């Protein structure tokens, strides 16, 4: 909500029309003021002319009566000439003598004969002869009656000018409506124009979004053909996309090679695993050849050979399963996870490291088997590599909410700084940071990200714990390992 209110966060397509509307508002305020003040000026001039004409003609006929102080004739004259016409209605007229005493008023009950003109004179500034009281909607006019250069009295008139004031409000209303419509139309035009002008940015933005999910797709040739700013921008973008895609391809090759490398390490440890019982088995065969007739020796030797062969069979089966899994993608099963224990066993045994294995996964679960196996194998190999001889590595496999949770803890000296850097990055880095350092961890990071999961760690001098959370897929596809 706060971001919506902050204009700095508005999209350009809103900002520009808003600015146009704001400018239009400013212009219309200035124009409205100018028009209204001009109208007011015109109306005042019209009023001044009207009242001057009206009072001049009245003064001519009133002068003799005022000189004679003939109350009735003054009253009769103003009573008959109250009407101004032209929407001004009837005027209130009052004639006062030279001493400011009322001779007669068209409204005698309000202004009786003999009353003072101070209340009437109050409406006027020192020299003005026409004043407008906008609140009451009345204009006040006055005229000095002179005879032979001597002031013999005044005529005061007030009349309705509400229609003039209404004219002003009408004009104001019209201006507001017109300007509002114009501002809206300009804003709409601005919005449309900006949207049109910015549409290449939308294309770019969409491509960049796609880029974060893997390969960056170059912008189509039709968009880059133009020689506008955006055409050039697209060309550069495409060049960059090509470079990035090359790098991504490189990274994938690297990842594949690393996987092969870890498989190589595995193969050597498997060979070792096979080699160990082989020596014992060959010894047993020699013993059988020399002392085969002795039943105790025969039984003992055959038993030894049997155990050796069973061990080799298990190892071979696991390697085969791994190989087959690479070929045929299937859902993860508890057996897949347990295979890893078997695969890691020889390496751990070689380095005299104990494995604590806790697997709470019993059924098939909605995750691809191959990457999960890879992740677990690599973390396990790293943990074993980090552990001191005679130490232990704990595996804990289970669920948390709708995710598979894999925790591997060792008692090693803690994660090296470059490994922490890989894990601390908010997004998996496209390439390993440094040559030959923690390629395995980088691979893990990528694979976890590909599965939409998260990787966390806690590390100290007493040991390291790495936790991988992999959300279960919605579309459960059940496939069994053959």
């Amino acid at each position, binding site marked *: 909500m706060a971001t919506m209110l902050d204009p700095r966060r508005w999209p350009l397509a809103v900002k520009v029309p808003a600015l146009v509307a704001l400018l239009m508002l400013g212009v219309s305020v200035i124009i409205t003021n100018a028009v209204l003040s001009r109208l007011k000026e015109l109306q005042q001039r019209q009023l001044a002319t009207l009242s001057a004409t009206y009072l001049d003609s009245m003064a001519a006929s009133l002068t003799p009566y005022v000189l004679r102080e*003939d109350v*009735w004739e003054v*009253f*009769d004259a103003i009573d008959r000439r109250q009407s101004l016409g032209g929407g001004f209605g009837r005027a209130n007229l009052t004639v006062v003598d030279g001493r400011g005493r009322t001779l007669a008023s068209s409204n*005698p*009950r309000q202004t*009786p004969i*003999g009353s003072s003109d101070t209340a009437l004179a109050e409406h006027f500034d020192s020299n003005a002869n026409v004043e407008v009281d906008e609140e009451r909607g009345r204009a006040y006019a006055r005229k000095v009656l002179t005879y032979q250069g001597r002031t013999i009295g005044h005529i005061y008139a007030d009349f309705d000018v509400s229609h003039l004031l209404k004219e002003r409000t009408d004009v104001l209303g019209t201006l507001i409506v017109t300007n509002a419509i114009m501002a809206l139309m300009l804003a709409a035009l601005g919005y449309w124009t900006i949207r049109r002008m910015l549409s290449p940015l939308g294309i770019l933005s969409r491509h960049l979004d796609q880029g974060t999910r893997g390969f960056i797709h170059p912008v189509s040739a039709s968009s880059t053909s133009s020689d506008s700013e955006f055409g050039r921008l697209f060309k550069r973008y495409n060049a960059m996309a090509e470079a990035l895609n090359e790098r991504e391809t490189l990274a994938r090759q690297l990842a594949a090679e690393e996987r092969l490398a870890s498989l190589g390490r595995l193969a050597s440890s498997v060979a070792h695993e096979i080699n160990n019982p082989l020596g014992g088995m060959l010894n047993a065969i020699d013993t059988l050849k020399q002392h085969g007739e002795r039943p105790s020796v025969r039984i003992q030797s055959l038993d030894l050979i049997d155990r050796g062969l069973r061990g080799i069979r298990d190892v071979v089966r696991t390697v085969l399963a791994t190989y087959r899994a690479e070929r045929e993608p299937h859902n993860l099963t508890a057996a897949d996870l347990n295979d890893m224990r078997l695969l890691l066993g020889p390496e751990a045994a070689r380095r005299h490291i104990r494995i604590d294995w806790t697997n709470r996964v019993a059924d098939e679960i909605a995750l691809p088997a191959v990457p999960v196996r890879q992740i677990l194998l690599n973390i396990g190999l790293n943990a074993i590599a980090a552990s001191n001889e005679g130490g232990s590595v704990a595996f804990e496999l289970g669920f948390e909410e709708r995710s598979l949770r894999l925790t591997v803890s060792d008692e090693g000296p803690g994660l090296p700084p470059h490994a922490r850097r890989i894990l601390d990055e908010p997004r998996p880095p496209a390439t390993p940071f440094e040559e030959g350092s923690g390629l395995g961890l980088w691979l893990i990071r990528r694979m976890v990200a590909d599965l939409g999961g998260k990787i966390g760690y806690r590390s100290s001098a007493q040991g390291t714990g790495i936790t991988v959370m992999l959300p279960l897929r919605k579309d459960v596809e059940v496939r069994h390992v053959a």
Partner: protein
Amino acid sequence: MRTSKEHRRRCLTIMQRHIRSVGALHRRHLLKGATAAFACMASRRSLADTPFTFGLTPVFLTSDLVLLEALQGYLERALSMPVRLVLRRTYQEISSQLVAGQIDAAWICGYPFVSYSTRLALVAVPVWRGTKYYQAYLLSAAGRTANGIDDLAGDTHAFSDPDSNSGYLVTRALLAERKRRPESHFTRSFFTYGHRNVVRAVATGLAQSGSVDGYVWEVMTETEPDLTLNTQVIWKSEWTGFPPIATSAGFAANARILRFNAALRSMHGDDLGRKVLSLLRLDGFDDASPDLFKGIAERVDLVRRSE
């Protein structure tokens, strides 16, 4: 109008020419010229084709053009001669023209008739609601509690005309009885030179009270109720003679005047005449004795004595 002016100018020219021909101011010549001029003026009355001039005062509703047209039309037919209606703003102007013999007859008020009783003669008196009498009213704004002249002290008061009985003399006499004068009793008073104007002044609030002809007020209750509804009668005088139609004493036996008297008295027997009477809300015209105006004469005496 033009004929009268032209005639007067011609008479004056005769006099001036005579004076100039003498060269020096010689008494005998001057007298001769004056006699010639006056003879010229007097001779005009005897001319049968000169229009009959009838002066009207604002005693009644002179503003009504329909009435004036009907009145002129009726009189021209009844008298078989052109008739000119003479309208003036004040009673004074009509009275003095009448006394001077410049107009044949005039409808004046009882007050100037009494004032100039020796120089004027009665032609006829209107009959209103069956009598030849009317009353003077004191008016105030409607809704005010006032019962007489004493309650009007301190008012702005509207009089009709200084030569009007109902519109001035009656109130003046009322105050004289109390040893007061309009200037001391009222804060302010003014003349409107018309009974209808008094009603307007009181109705609009220009004056707080007014002295008015009762007949005019009563007629206005029918013709202009909007105005009279804003006023109320707070006092009525006793019945006095209705404003009469008078002529200069010298013309009284004149054939023109006799015909005029007959025309007035037979007005109710003629269609156009009845239209005039109905517009005036009068029954007709009748002969009357100057005694009709005794009450007014007493008032004039009262006022004169109080001064």
